[in-house]
């Protein structure tokens, strides 16, 4: 199957630290590809390179068959790359519905840009769908800043998904969530693959093994292994560098 997203030889360093050092991988459409690795392995930086937040020193991406050298994040979003953040990055003064509408209005044709918001029906409908899908309907008119941590993390995903990206990148979406919230969020993410290709960073190894179609293991900026969960788990190098620590 032709991949939806490929990273080819991406690299960046920050003052001598090779945060990401020549990483290549592919994410198949409608699958969950998960990037794992210890803290500081370069996972978030890899996401920053793919989403245009950081300019790579080397490498490029291929999205849906088209090659793109570095582009601004807004252009990449228009091309179909949506992302969430490890540290919740919402419009905290705005309500839940306003956050979602802001993200969803990208769906509106350009000619609706100067038409009153209440008439942008496409965005309005999308907001309604997302409120249901992410169990936030009861909180629609609350300020995002007043939500619980778990609700904020859910809204973070919903905002990234609102304008129907081709690729949805989620950076530790369950971070700081309770056990039951984590399980619920995992179910939610699994359900998303009907319509979107998911690229995930996740720490909860049980969850990763459970929901991933493919796993990319990173260590000190490099890719250590790449394959289906069972294969990656059995890889001796991964055992040593990653699961080894986890078990001891």
């Amino acid at each position: 199957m032709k991949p939806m997203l490929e990273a080819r030889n991406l690299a960046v360093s920050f003052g001598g630290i090779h945060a990401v050092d020549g990483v290549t991988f592919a994410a198949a459409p409608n699958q969950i590809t998960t990037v794992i690795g210890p803290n500081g392995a370069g996972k978030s930086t890899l996401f920053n390179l793919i989403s245009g937040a950081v300019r790579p020193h080397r490498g490029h991406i291929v999205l849906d068959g088209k090659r793109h050298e570095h582009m601004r994040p807004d252009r990449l979003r228009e091309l179909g790359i949506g992302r969430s953040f490890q540290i919740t990055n919402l419009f905290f003064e705005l309500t839940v519905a306003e956050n979602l509408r802001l993200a969803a209005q990208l769906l509106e044709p350009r000619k609706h840009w100067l038409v009153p918001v209440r008439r942008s029906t496409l965005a309005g409908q999308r907001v309604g769908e997302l409120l249901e899908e992410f169990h936030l309907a009861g909180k629609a008119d609350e300020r995002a800043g007043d939500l619980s941590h778990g609700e904020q993390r859910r809204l973070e995903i919903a905002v990234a998904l609102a304008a129907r990206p081709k690729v949805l990148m989620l950076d530790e979406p369950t971070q700081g969530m309770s056990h039951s919230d984590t399980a619920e969020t995992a179910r939610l993410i699994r359900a998303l693959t009907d319509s979107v290709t998911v690229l995930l960073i996740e720490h909860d190894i049980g969850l990763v093994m459970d929901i991933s179609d493919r796993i990319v293991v990173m260590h000190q900026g490099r890719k250590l292994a790449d394959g289906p969960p069972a294969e990656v788990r059995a890889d001796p190098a991964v055992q040593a560098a990653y699961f080894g620590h986890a078990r001891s």
Partner: protein
Amino acid sequence: MLDRLSLSMRASHILVALLVVIALVFALVAWSTGDRFYLRLATEALIFAGLALSVDTLLGYTGLLPLGQALFFGFGAYVSALVLREAPSFWTAIGVVFLSTLVVGLTGGVIASRARGVYFALISFGLAQVVSKVVFNIRELGASDGLRGIPVLDIEFGLFSISTNAPLAFFLFTLAFILLLYALAAYLLDTPFGRVLIALKANEKRVPFLGYSVFGARLAAYILAAEIAALSGALYPMLRGFVSPELMFFAVSGNAIIGVILGGVGTLAGALYGSILLTLMRSIVGTWTEHHLIVIGLVFIIVVIFLPRGLLGFVRPRLEAVLSRRQKP
């Protein structure tokens, strides 16, 4: 179903409608007493309220502090004065101001929109300083004296015309003109475009990842604000018959910002209320005592301490709550 931002805008419209009622009652009283002084003062207050409106679109809705917004107010006033001296036509003057402000606003915007926070504020301040000092030193523009002898004007409407020398008629005309500018700002701020501006204020870092260009949105906001300021300024020489470099000075920008803070940052209607109150206070207190700045300073401090969101920042949320209850079935 309206969300909270759209409800706020509706609340703002109601408060502006109230302001119009107050203005009309005032006009009636002034007309029946044959007053000229207060009518012309109120007209001036409305003109400066247009500048405050422009400040609030940047400060209250885009999160940018324009320390030098008087640059565009003064620009509009000078261009209007220059046109009127050559060809005394209101519509020509307004047309030329509008088009030239597009060019100047775009130029200033390309410079200023690269920056944000305190850097934007300083660039805005610097641009106004440079331009006002240049104008101050150009003899063809009247240097420190400014341009005088702008002729009295008949604003043609086909069926009738309004003389800028008729205090009541010109007051009502200015009221309608500033209302149009308010309507323009309020309309645009309640569109998807306006929501992107509001997003810039709330959390600029996330905006690019939603697919919107931060630079583009900031630039558009800057040009919009420049137009509102310049079009307001265009009325100034029609009222006063002259323009001077002081119109671009920091005192004018600063007053507009104080007016916005008094009225309530990000309330739009508040910019009109705050700025009008400030102009009236300055002038009326000024006739009692030459220490009027002390009085105004004290009022400002009291408002900031007791009504930190400004006059309308206090009133509007209550109005919103009523509107929101009426909206729920």
